[in-house]
C-alpha cells in the first residue's frame, strides 16, 4: 500500500468526431500530482476545457486533484463530462468553492510610512506610561505591605536572590576574569612603551571598579536573568497562571514582580563587587606575567590609586542597574499576549531595552559623579 504502487495519473487526448476527447486515468491525488510531472503539465495545458472529458478511468480523486481540474476548467463544469458516481461528491466540494477568494490584505501606501512613524512614537509614549503605572502598582503594593508586615513575600525574594545572584556567580567570574586579563594585557603593552608601568594599577582599578564592573555585570544579568524573568512572566501569562492569581485576589505586582525587583536590586551590588574583584584578579595575574609586577605591590598601590568613593559609586550603580533591569524585564513580561510571537518579541524587547537603559543611566551617572573620587584632575 505504498504510494509508489498506486497507478500514476495519465491523460489521453484524442481528436475524434465532435471535438476533442480527453480521457483521464489513474490516481488524481496529491501524492501523484505534486509536484506535477512535466509531461502531464504539458498535456493538461493543451487539453481543452470545452472538449469531452471522460473521468471513468480515474481510480482515485481527492480534493487536490479536483481543485486542479476545476481550475483548469475555468471554474466551470465542462458541458460534456463523464463522471463516475463515486467521484461526484469530491468534485461537488470543489464546485462549492467561493469564487471571491480571501478578503484582500490592504497594500502599502505612501501615507502608511507616516502612520507607522506615528504609531512608533505613540508606542514609545505608551511604554513610558505603562512603565510608570507598573512602578506605581509596585509602590501601592509596598504601601500595603508596610501595614501588614507578615505579608512580605520573603520566600520568593530569597528564591529569586538565589536564582539571579548565586547562580550567576560562575559566569560573572569567568567573563570578569577574562576581561581583566585582556584589559591589563593591552594597557601593559602601551604603558611599557612610555615606562609608565606603575599606572596599570590606576587604569585597572579605576576602570573596573567605577565603570566596567557595574556595566559588564549589568549586561550579563540583563541577558541572563532579565530575559528569564520576562519569559517566565510571559509563559505564566500564556498558561493563565497570572489570571489564576488575580482571581484569588493576590496581587501579581506584590507576589511576582516585587520579589524579582527586590532580589535583583540586592543581588546586583554583590555581583558587581564579585565581578569587579575577579576582573582585578585577572588584571593582576596579567600584570604579573606581562610586567613582572608583584601581587604585593599591586594590592598596596590599589587603595592609593583608587579612592574608596569609587567603590561606593560602583556598587550604587550596580543597585540602580539591578532595579532598572528587573523593572524593565517585569514590564515586558506582563505585556506578553498568549501567543509565541508575542513572547519572543517581548523577551527581545526586554533585553534590548534593559541594556539600553543601563547604558543611558550609566552616562547620567558619569556626569553626575564627575567631581567625585578621581585622584588626578
Amino acid at each position, binding site marked *: *500500500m*505504498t*504510494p509508489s504502487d498506486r497507478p500514476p495519473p495519465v491523460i489521453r487526448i484524442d481528436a475524434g468526431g465532435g471535438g476533442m476527447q480527453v480521457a483521464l486515468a489513474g490516481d488524481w*491525488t*496529491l*501524492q501523484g500530482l*505534486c*509536484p506535477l510531472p512535466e509531461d502531464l503539465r504539458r498535456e493538461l495545458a493543451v487539453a481543452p476545457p470545452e472538449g469531452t472529458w471522460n473521468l471513468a478511468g480515474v481510480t482515485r480523486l*481527492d*480534493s*487536490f486533484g479536483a*481543485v*486542479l481540474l*476545476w*481550475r483548469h476548467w475555468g471554474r466551470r463544469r465542462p458541458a460534456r463530462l463523464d463522471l463516475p458516481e463515486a467521484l461526484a*461528491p*469530491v468534485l461537488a*466540494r*470543489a464546485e*462549492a*468553492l*467561493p469564487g*471571491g*477568494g*480571501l*478578503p484582500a*490584505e490592504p497594500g502599502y501606501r505612501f501615507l502608511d510610512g507616516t502612520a507607522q512613524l506615528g504609531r512608533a512614537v505613540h508606542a514609545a509614549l505608551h511604554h513610558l506610561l505603562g512603565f510608570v503605572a507598573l512602578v506605581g502598582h509596585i509602590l501601592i503594593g509596598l504601601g500595603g505591605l508596610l501595614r501588614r508586615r507578615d505579608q512580605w513575600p520573603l520566600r520568593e525574594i530569597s528564591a529569586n536572590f538565589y536564582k539571579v545572584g548565586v547562580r550567576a556567580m560562575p559566569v560573572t567570574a569567568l567573563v570578569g576574569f577574562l576581561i581583566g586579563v585582556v584589559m591589563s594585557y593591552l594597557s601593559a603593552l602601551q604603558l611599557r612603551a612610555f615606562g609608565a608601568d606603575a599606572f596599570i594599577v590606576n587604569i585597572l582599578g579605576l576602570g573596573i571598579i567605577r565603570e566596567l564592573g557595574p556595566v559588564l555585570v549589568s549586561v550579563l544579568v540583563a541577558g541572563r536573568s532579565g530575559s528569564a524573568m520576562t519569559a517566565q512572566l510571559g509563559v505564566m501569562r500564556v498558561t493563565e497562571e497570572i489570571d489564576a492569581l488575580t482571581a484569588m485576589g493576590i496581587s501579581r505586582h506584590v507576589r511576582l514582580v516585587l520579589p524579582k525587583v527586590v532580589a535583583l536590586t540586592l543581588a546586583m551590588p554583590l555581583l558587581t563587587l564579585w565581578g569587579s574583584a575577579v576582573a582585578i584578579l585577572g588584571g593582576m595575574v596579567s600584570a604579573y606575567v606581562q610586567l613582572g609586577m608583584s601581587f604585593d605591590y599591586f594590592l598596596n598601590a590599589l587603595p592609593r590609586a583608587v579612592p574608596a568613593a569609587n567603590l561606593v559609586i560602583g556598587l550604587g550603580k550596580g543597585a540602580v542597574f539591578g532595579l532598572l533591569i528587573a523593572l524593565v524585564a517585569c514590564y515586558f513580561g506582563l505585556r506578553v*499576549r*498568549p*501567543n*509565541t*510571537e508575542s513572547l519572543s518579541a517581548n523577551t527581545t524587547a526586554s533585553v534590548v531595552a534593559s541594556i539600553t537603559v543601563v547604558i543611558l543611566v550609566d552616562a547620567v551617572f558619569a556626569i553626575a559623579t564627575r567631581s567625585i573620587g578621581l585622584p588626578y584632575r
Partner: protein
Amino acid sequence: MSTFPVELRGVSTRFGKQWIHRGIDLAVPAGEVVALVGGSGSGKTTLLRQMVGLLYPVEGEVKVFGERLDAGARHEQLARRRRFGMLFQHGALFSAFTVFANIAFPLREFGVRDEGLLRDLVLLKMAMVELEPDVALRMPAELSGGMVKRVALARALALEPELLVLDEPTAGLDPDLSSAFVELIRSLHRALGLTVILVTHDLDTLAALATRVAVLSAGRILAFGTLDEVTNVRDPFIDRFFHGARSQAALARGLGAG
C-alpha cells in the same frame, strides 16, 4: 498491502519505574472509527502519541501502514508521516501564523508552489470544516475554542490523509458545538473513507462516532469490538465506565444522534 493502517504488537511503556502499558496488541482495520477509552492515567494519549511517533515504546513495535515509522530512508519516513493527520487536544495551531497560513503550511511543505491553487485548496479545506472564508486572516489567539478545533482539523486534513488521529476531539467544547463537531468528523469519515483513531472521555462522542471501541485498563486492552460487544464484557472497570446512570444516558444520547 495491509488492511491495518495501525498495528500495535506487544507494546509496553514505562515512565520512570511505573509501567503504563504491558504488552498491548491492537490492529486498527482500515475504514473504521476506533475509539480508545479508559480511565484517567490509563495511557490513552500515550498510546496515541506512540502511533504517530512522538514517543517510542520500551518494548514491542508500532506499525503504521505496515511499517515502523522509523523504518526506511529519510524520504520514505517522511512520505509515511504525510499519510496521516493528527488533531491535537488543544489544536496546537502555530500561534504566529494566520488561520490561512496554518492550513497552507503542510501543503507548502509538501511542495505546492502555485499560490492560486494553494488558496483554493485552503478555502476548500475551510469549507469542509464549515469555516467561513473571512476567518482566514485571523490569528489563532482571536478564535473561539470550537473554531480552533476546526482549523486544526482542516490542517490535519490538508494533505489528504488516509488516517486521522484525534486526541480528545470534543474536550472543551460545549454540548452543541461538540455534537456539531462529531457530525463533521462523521461526514468527513463517510466522504473521504478515512480511518479514524480517537481518544475520548466523552461517551456521547464515543456512541455517536465509534464503529469499534478499545477499552484500556490497567495497562492492557480489556476489550476491543463494537460498542455492544464491549459493554457486554463482564468486568468491574467496564461496569463502572459504561453502566453508570450518567454513562447510560450519554450513550443513549450519542446513539440517538448517530
